[in-house]
């Protein structure tokens, strides 16, 4: 069920998204219309800095990437919580500051744990 008002102040964002999609698609379509198409085997080969590609394109990623991504998600969410907090900070004042310090300290425990467990080290 939609709300009562159309978010008209987001019209520039919609126009921006539309232009970027049109620009991306337009460049591809224009390119495919204008360019010559003379494929041969070497040309269709994946480019790997000039040397012949070796092995499969789908390699199994290291689990370390997953830890980094997971930590990124967690601290992303933490930063998100700070945004509405910063907006209303002048209204709530010291109380809000203490709240946020508790919030950050709890997450800092996780950060210290990650440091201790050497989650950031690639070895």
């Amino acid at each position, binding site marked *: 069920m939609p709300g009562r008002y159309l978010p008209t102040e987001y019209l520039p964002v919609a126009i921006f998204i539309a232009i970027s999609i049109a620009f991306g698609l337009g460049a591809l379509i224009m390119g495919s219309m204008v360019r010559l198409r003379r494929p041969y085997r070497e040309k269709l080969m994946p480019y790997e800095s000039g040397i012949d590609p070796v092995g499969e394109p789908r390699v199994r*990623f290291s689990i370390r990437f997953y830890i980094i991504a*997971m930590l990124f998600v967690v601290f992303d969410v933490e930063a998100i919580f700070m945004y509405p907090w910063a907006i209303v900070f002048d209204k709530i004042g010291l109380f809000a500051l203490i709240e946020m310090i508790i919030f950050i300290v709890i997450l800092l425990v996780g950060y210290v744990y990650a440091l201790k467990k050497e989650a950031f080290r690639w070895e």
Partner: protein
Amino acid sequence: MLEFFFGYLSLVIIIFSLLVVLSKNAIHSVLYMLVMFFHVAGIYLLLQAEFLAAVQIIVYAGAILVLFLFAIMLLNLREELSAEQLTDGWPASLAVVAGLLLTLMLSLGGFTTTFNGSWSPEKIKEITFTKALGQALYTGYILPFEVASIILLVAIVGAIVLAKRRLN
């Protein structure tokens, strides 16, 4: 006009959700999900939940999808990509989804949208959604807010424990 946007967003969400489930290539599924997340953000905008729309894009499209991509690349689905279908339990899934849909449709019949307490849509519109959310969250809902940090802490510790065990 409102109905037009709502219809467009819901239609794209339904189509791309189906594509996510039906696509055989898991990476393509993630990319379809990206499109779906952006349209869900559009639905949030229509509901005046601007902050949620931003969160939907920053956290879901930005961070959670990266996690999905890494999970897929970790699994290294090679045989599964050439398989006819990933799982063969689809009649059961269909039955569950149909049951859920039926329950929703039956229960939504007697549903009216209204607001409770002092936060009327006009008031939220006046002071802007993010400010309203901040005031409610950081004065009335302190405990849930602090509990959220503990949940995030559990996520950090869990990820490190699981991944480190695999490394050793």
